[in-house]
């Protein structure tokens, strides 16, 4: 499982930009929402698209989920619990590098 979390994490780091938005709160929101949406999409659950912002997270997640399916043949067959576990693991790692332990001081500023 750790390996799979690592693979997804590496893919996100190389491919995505939303984990590195300007401020902590944006980074955290993106990481949790988008990876959360990936888990939901992958297990056929309904995703919140009620606002433009939520819809944007959905769009990022949708494309990411399909890229992960294409890239990793094990990704499609996973149970909800497993997908969730992977996504949670990825969230934790992304939070660690982009929010909790990031060396980027600017992300803490209160204004854009």
């Amino acid at each position, binding site marked *: 499982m750790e390996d799979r979390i690592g693979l997804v994490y590496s893919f996100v780091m190389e491919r995505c930009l939303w984990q590195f938005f300007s401020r902590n709160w944006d980074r955290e929101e993106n990481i949790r929402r988008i990876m959360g949406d990936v888990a939901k999409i992958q297990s056929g659950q309904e995703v919140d698209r009620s606002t*433009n912002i939520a819809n944007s*997270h*959905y769009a990022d997640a949708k494309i990411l989920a399909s890229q992960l399916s294409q890239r990793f043949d094990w990704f499609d067959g996973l149970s909800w619990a497993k997908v969730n576990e992977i996504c949670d693991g990825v969230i934790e790692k992304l939070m660690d590098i982009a929010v909790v332990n990031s060396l*980027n001081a600017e992300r803490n500023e209160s204004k854009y």
Partner: protein
Amino acid sequence: MPMALLEADVKIPERKKHVYIKQPGEDTKQYLPASNITTIPGSLSERGCSYCGAKLVIGGVLKDTIQIIHGPVGCSYNTWHTKRYPSDADNFQIKYAWSTDMKESNVVFGGEARLKKSMLEAFAAFPDKRRMMVYTTCATALIGDDIKAVAKEVQDELGDVDIFCVECPGFAGVSQSKGHHVFNIDWVNQKVGTVEPDITSDFTINIIGDYNIQGDAYVLQRYMDEIGVQVIAHFTGNGTYDACRSMHRAKLSITNCARSAGYIANELQKQYGIPRMDVDTWGFDYVKESLRKIGAFFNIEDRVEALIEREVAVHGPRLDGFKAGLAGKKVAIWTGGPRLWHWTKALEDDLGMEVVAMASKFGHQEDFEKVIARGRVGTVYIDDGNELEFFEVIDMVKPDVIFTGPRVGELVKKVHIPYINGHAYHNGPYMGFEGAVNMARDMSNAIHSNLFKLAKRDISKGGF
């Protein structure tokens, strides 16, 4: 030794924190180059000033706006004829430069009257142009001219004009980046929301952080037209002043250059609930992904897939034609900041090249988080690089081609390395599918140029 003190920097050891060589297993929690901090005087930094970040990069791109620079003539002169951003408005924005041509007496007695006269003259000379941006510069900021008050007077007097004031003198920040910031924040707070656009589609977006370099914006516009998405504002490539005032009416902002325009995307999200979606509009494969995200957002995936299918059918084989000649070739990218992270993976994944050194003039730590996440192990990452460092890095990593500006291009030419204009391109556009092909073609022509092979030959030694 991931943070590296180069030989050239032994006498300015504070440079060590700006130079990083990525080692296996490392990430940006351990090492992140210092950036967006004070330039070391006399280091032969490549940076420009804050004023140019606002005027030359963002405001000056607008195709319908008079750009009047309040200061000595050089600030206007210097930010004229240094960019390749055309427009479909007869290139108004690159043909003209306005200056209040401030003189010594104005420094002593103030330059507001001079500014007002110059503004009125500019409107009189161009009667069909009713939009203006006014910029302070070092001299006029130091003497404290109130350009906003003057702008208000002119606006009241003429009635049909709208004026935006940019108060960001050259010394205001450590690089052009500060100018981006000031422009973004003041624009969203002062001008966005003051014009209502005609909405012609259910699908509306802002395209943020693209400046129509060699027609990039035309490519993106064509894609949006084809999938039925209305571009409310292009901030600012081939854009208009009033369109950028109506950005609050879009449902989505796609952001390419997050360094120069991430601020406005953030504020639009915060103030108007318009999501910021970061995309890569460079790179063959990235473009597919970016378009698909827009398709997913608007539920128009079928249109997007049709576009991608056709574009890939046309341009895919052309790109493939360059792959064999470029695979394994080494690239250095020495540009402003974001192109590092936009390009490094794209060149590697699309073409099999190796990006071996990257230097950013004005990137922030956020940019280095992105580029180090995307970049290779062993690659050299530099903030605010200087000339002696560049020579040293060339010796270390031996690039086959370098993306950089024309001046540094002239320098690296002497050591037998071709350059490609990383700011203004050689023969663009570089965005979109066709752009990725153009970029590959330019690299191929550069790397395989016979002239550089001939340059290496010393005819005095015979053997040829």
